[in-house]
């Protein structure tokens, strides 16, 4: 009987740094946390920054280095707040875990094993405000035996009472050379051929998000084999090719509504996400040299409005057509006001 095919591990997990000092290019954070590890004293922590910059990696690495693999499961509770984020969870799971007394002080295999437990709350900015408020008392009551690690993208969404109880650590977006060196290392380990153009394309489409870059690399390797080109990466990432964006802009410059409408129809038929087109249109407009500041402002305002409508679930074709119509008028300096405003 043939063995069941093992799940191939996502490279995002396979190449996750295991030690705090291995987290790339967050030097300020690493320096402070290394000191924490040596002394064993640990405040509540708040990690914030863009996605894919090592926040969760750092939190888990701290927990592993403090407790080691044996005590990790009994001493560390991980909650992803995206689904366990109501007030019920705070009343039950977190309080129950925080209230349990710490086990006997036993240093094993050289790990510090400080006398407290750790609760890691990932995606903490998705927690409801009630849940965050309910957490305040728990943090104070059990601060002797429990430490909280909050991980979020926007520190402004954590209520001030919680934020003021934590040591804050900001994670910066990764620069291109940092990401490139990491990607090259993974490519060598997995036996991939990656040329310089593909490498720069991968950095461009990832926007400083290393997890996204690694995921794109793995997706492209699965679909296309070990030789990966720039086009392969673009196709797995959902990024709109530059030619399509340029074709749409050219139609806008021509001032012909029917031509632009045809381009929008073709774009929708190709299946590209409209939100991605708005993002790339914005970048193209900002870099356009032939436009005045007022024209750029008009177009950017409409792009912002359309992006909001798309997030709320509006129809892609209609929103994109509205954006294109506004862009045509801005390019040709036609009057902006409508005959009847609501």
């Amino acid at each position, binding site marked *: *009987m043939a063995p*069941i*095919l*093992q*799940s*191939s591990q*996502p490279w995002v997990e396979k190449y996750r740094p295991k030690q705090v000092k291995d987290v790339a290019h967050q030097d300020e954070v690493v320096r402070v946390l290394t000191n924490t590890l040596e002394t064993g004293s640990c405040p509540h922590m708040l990690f914030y920054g863009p*996605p894919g910059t090592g926040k969760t990696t750092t939190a888990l690495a701290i927990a592993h280095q403090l407790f080691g693999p044996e005590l990790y499961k009994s001493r560390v509770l991980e909650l*992803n707040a*995206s*689904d366990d984020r109501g007030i*019920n969870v705070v009343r039950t799971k977190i309080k129950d875990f925080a209230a349990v007394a710490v086990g006997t002080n036993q240093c094993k295999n050289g790990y510090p094993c400080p006398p407290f437990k750790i609760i890691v709350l990932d995606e903490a900015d*998705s927690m409801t405000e009630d849940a965050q408020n309910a957490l305040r008392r728990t943090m104070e009551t059990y601060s002797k035996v429990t430490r909280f690690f909050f991980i979020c993208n926007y520190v402004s969404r954590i209520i001030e009472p919680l934020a003021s109880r934590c040591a804050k650590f900001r994670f910066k977006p990764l620069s291109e050379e940092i990401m490139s060196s990491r990607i090259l290392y993974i490519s060598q380990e997995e036996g991939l051929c990656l040329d310089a153009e593909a490498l720069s394309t991968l950095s461009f489409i990832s926007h400083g998000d290393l*997890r*996204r870059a690694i*995921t794109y690399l793995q*997706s492209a390797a*699965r*679909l*296309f*084999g070990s030789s990966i080109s720039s086009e392969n990466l673009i*196709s*797995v*990432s*959902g990024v709109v090719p530059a030619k399509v964006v340029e074709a749409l802009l050219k139609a806008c410059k021509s001032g012909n*509504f*029917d031509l632009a*409408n045809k381009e929008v*129809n073709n774009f*929708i*038929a*190709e*299946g*590209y*996400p*409209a*939100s*991605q087109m708005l993002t790339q249109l914005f970048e193209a407009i900002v870099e356009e040299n032939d436009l005045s500041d007022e024209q750029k402002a008009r177009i950017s305002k409409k792009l912002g409005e*359309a992006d909001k*409508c*798309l997030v*709320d*679930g*509006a*129809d*892609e*074709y*209609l*929103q994109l*057509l*509205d954006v294109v*119509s*506004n862009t*045509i*008028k801005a390019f040709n300096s*036609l009057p902006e006001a*409508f*005959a*009847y405003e*609501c």
Partner: protein
Amino acid sequence: MLWVDKYRPKTLDQVMVHTDIAHNLKKLVTEQDSPHLLFYGPSGSGKKTLIMALLRQMFGPGAEKVKVENRTWKIDAGSRSLDLELTTLSSANHIEMSPSDAGFQDRYIVQEVIKEMAKNRPIDTKGKKGFKVLVLNDVDKLSREAQHSLRRTMEKYSAYCRLILCCNSSSRVTEAIRSRCLNVRINAPSEEQIVQVLEFIGKKEGLQLPPGFAARIAEKSNRNLRRAILSFETCRVLQYPFTNKQAIPPMDWEEYISEIASDIMKEQSPKRLFQVRGKLYELLINCIPPEIILKRLLYELLRKLDAELKHEVCHWAAYYEYRMRLGQKAIFHIEAFVAKFMSIYKSFLIATFG
């Protein structure tokens, strides 16, 4: 049997339109373990066909023996107890469903089904894979909470259950889900590709196609392959042998909307608006989706307008469709759009002709 089902490719090797994607998917599935997949693209582009062919590639011909089940779940959600019911298609190895049919309770459906599949993982290992597949349709219509639940659940049980997500537009799928799936974009076939498929079907059915006939069907279909094949079969039913100038019949609701647009252009008065409202109600009670009504109405109106009015009209169509998305009663917003158009158009006529 309709031609659209009769000539649907059953295996990845038979796929005619997206041959490169089918080839890559076959390599993906045979060589190594399959990740979660997200298929996105416009309607009628072949997403479902590729998914069914992929399942057959993974599990063999048994994947086609499906049965329709009306399943119910009883869920304790804190202080409440919910009874949910949903229709699913299931085979021994996969389940297919549209959780957005459950409305705002879609998050519970998503969580419960995946947990169930994880519990019932196959005892015998005679099957090729150690996991089952859950096909979720219309993922872009899931609520935000359901997508969050889906994201967490797909992480926890990924060893036993693989997801294949299918949606029209990936803009409304949260980034968290997109980053955990292998995204496969299925673009609409070009008109040349549709012509090839129609000629293939014509040859199989022993039909004689006049030159340019297939191209005209392809042009009318708006790059929708399902639409093209259905139109082709409709032409065959209406009249055979085909003629060069044979009319390609549009859909009933499209003719109806074209009539509405003509009514709006001819007269702009409260009495005419009242008549248009009656016609809009007729469309809505026949289950034409409101956003499709609005888009088709805009298309018909734009064909009759001067260039300077087109900008304003397409803005208001986008505006009212967005409000319709946020609201509950579609007739309010479609009628508001018609009233707004009448006002703009009448002002334009007065300013132009006095």
